């Protein structure tokens, strides 16, 4: 899921320390003027410890709140639930599960040496 890229500066932006994100929650980072919701998963399974980034803007509520949603899985898909009207968004693709026509931007994210990086 999470690529282990060669860090090419200018593309990958360091947003915070991994420790700044409580496992299974999200934070919002400002990356090149864009609000990005960055989530950290707990555990050590397949997705354990991975980080994911999608847009922070909730297209239904029209508010910057997705980073404050509850993280989990539905039928195996990693999702966050909007804290306002509870639609679910796939953490990897940004696809809304309830509305096939709605998808928020998804970004690559990774952890290197305890720091979280995102490409927008």
């Amino acid at each position, binding site marked *: 899921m999470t690529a282990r890229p060669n860090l090419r500066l200018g593309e990958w*932006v*360091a*947003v*915070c320390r991994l420790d*700044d*994100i*409580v*496992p*299974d*929650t999200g*934070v*919002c*980072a*400002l990356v090149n*003027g864009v*609000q990005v919701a*960055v989530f950290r*998963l*707990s*555990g050590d399974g397949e997705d354990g410890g991975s980080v994911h980034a999608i847009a922070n*803007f909730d297209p239904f*509520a*029209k*508010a*910057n*709140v997705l980073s*404050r*949603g*509850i*993280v*989990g*899985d*539905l*039928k*195996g898909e*990693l*999702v966050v*639930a909007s*804290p*306002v009207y*509870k639609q*679910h968004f796939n953490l990897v693709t940004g696809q809304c599960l309830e509305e096939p026509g709605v998808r928020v931007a998804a970004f690559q994210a990774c952890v290197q*040496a*305890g*720091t979280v*990086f995102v490409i927008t």
Partner: protein
Amino acid sequence: MKPEKIVVIGNGMIGQRFLEQLVSRAEAHPVDITVFCAEPRPAYDRVQLTSFFSGKSPAELNLVPEGFFERHGIALRLNDKAVAIDRERKVVRSARGQELRYDKLVLATGSYPFVPKVPGTEWQDCFVYRAIEDLEAIRAAAGNAKVGTVIGGGLLGLEAAKALQDLGLKTHVVEFAPRLMAVQLDDSGGRLLRHKIEALGVSVHTSKVTKEIVKGETCRHKLLFADGSSLETDIVVFSAGIRPRDQLAKAARLSVGERGGITVNDHCQTNDSNIYALGECALWSGRLYGLVAPGYQMAEVAARHITGETDARFPGADMSTKLKLLGVDVASIGDAHGAAPDALNYVFTDEASGIYKKLVVSGDRKRLLGAVLVGEANDYGSLLQLTLNAIELPEHPEDLILPAREGGASKGLGVDALPDSALICSCNNVSKSALCNAVTDGATSLAALKKCTRAATTCGGCGPLVKQILDATLKKQGVEVKNYLCEHFDYSRQELFHLTRIGGLKTFDQIISKHGRGRGCDICKPAVAGILAACWNEFVLKPKHAPLQDTNDYYLANMQKDGTYSIVPRVPGGEILPEKLIVLGEVAKKFGLYTKITGAQRIDLFGARVEQLPLIWKDLVDAGFESGHAYGKALRTVKSCVGSTWCRYGVQDSVTMAVHIENRYRGLRAPHKLKMAVSGCTRECAEAQGKDVGIIATEKGWNLYVCGNGGIKPRHADLLAKDIDDATLVKFIDRFLMFYIRTGDRLQRTATWLDNLEGGIDYVRKVVCEDSLSIGAELEADMQRFVDTYECEWKKAISDPETLKRFRHFVNSTAPDHNIVFAVERGQIRPARSDEKHKPDEAYNSSKADHEPALEPAS
């Protein structure tokens, strides 16, 4: 065809069922029916007789459908006893001198209670327990009595004992055998039952033979026992067995058994083929049945036989029973004593929880022959089905009675394993296929199914199984019926609550790895957060709990449509010092918040950005405010009226009580939010009857109402207890709330909870006020632990640097969210509409003082 003249003697439960069966077949076979009924009223539900004491009127116990006798032209002779049968002339004579000819005669005379020949039983305070009149007499005598004794510790005796206790008497049970329910239970089961009965406050005396009843010293009478001991009592109820009423038959020289009972063949005919006998008075194949179910079967067989179905036969019946005493589950199935020569026993005893279960299986371990359940009889229905249908047992029969194993498959075989012909409700002869068909034909709720099939309407023993069949059938139709929390847990909230509490589980990870699957979701996580809070009351923002919280709980404030938050400080009872009122105004001004009085006597401050929350709380906490939990599935407010302190009509100090109650239960997490109110008199200015817990002052104390609701579907609260004092009030609320918290479903307010609770408010009253489950002390202790560990969540949040880190919009910038824009209306802010956001001069952008985003250096 000339109608056949049919005379029925007895209009009890079986006689009535016979009439119904007969008239439903009478189209092809016209009949002219007369019924003699010795009692002053037509058939009523004797099985539910005891509910007469809990308030059921004779009319509610009535079993005869409206207009039944008139509609079918049946002559009912109430209060008229048949006294002689002349078989030669085919005539019945009644006590009032009526003589009636019959073509067919049906005896449904039932039983009479056996009263042992003990000198002194002629005392006026000695009763039996069989008819409504008996209970009326007992109630009248109990009025000025203190102690009551039941002679006989069988099924009925225990029911009578519970009734005496409910009438407020100190109650004793005297049993001749060395254990209670000697017929159904073995020694260990009997011992456990004894403990349970004693825990209800009833004294049990076994191996006691009553020799004489004499005048008492401290009570009206004294029972003298054969072993020299004695017992003082005011009233005595005999429940020492029943005897078939066969005198009439005997006098008519019909064949009767050595120990009583009118001998019948498989068609329920006596040795005179024109005379039938049914129910408790009939002796079939050497057996007497003291239960309704076999009698109902006989009633059907006789009706069919009389109307020409000559092959209708009574196949014999099962004597399994389940004791329906509240709080004590006891059941006995089939060959409970293991009488079959090669029978094997499996026994499970859990003395700590008071559970005893025994299975009797065949030598090859393939069939269940019998079972005894004490302390927990949930599996009665399914075990009975295994026995009745000779269903092959699973590999480990012991799994059927052992508590579910760690990670093991659920026990039992499920209703799908039952054949269509399986008799589910034996009282009313309803098979599995009849139930399934009724569901398919539209009876899709338990109530509808009960109504149209009659299943589960008599002893209720089959109720759980009927529900399972309903659910299974609906599921096959593709209807979703699970009350599982979500795809991660195959448990309801109530089940998960118990697993958490009993397993001592402290985190979501432990719970999901033990009892669920996957990572969880926005349904189960907050539900588990609530369960954990109710069980252990740890700080909700501890890192291990934080990811479970809805954003409202996470930020201890309510998220608004634009991503800002609102803050509602607690104002206990709605009473507030002017100084604190001023602080609220000052804080609102300082942070530019919209201010409104809420619908529940508090003040709401709107429009706070996430990074402002800790600053706002700091000011509020410093001024002595606490979190109002407007964000939580928790206690909201306790609304009050001014009460006796100021109001000319008030009879109690409602404000003091409201403040006390709100401070006691503040922060209590529950399946849904909780609201309460206290009114100082019956004028009810605090609208207490619309609350989950409503308290209304009376001259003598308080009336406690529960399970009211405003909101989406308003419901008036039900009265739980009357005229109670302060301490009792708090005790009952403690118990009520904890009982709801333990058993409520996710997002189920108390109103819906009650509407779905079997037994309704009467059941709640038994549990809360009479402690019928003996869990009162435990519920109070749970509540006290919660009260003792309460901490204000805001105060805790602002003093914990780790928690505070979450309160900023950007993890890598101190800038605010530029998308939050307010407009001004009536002098206060409100979220700007999207058209306003693009006209900067009309809108006020909260991120005007925008910083250049400062990225933290990458390491």
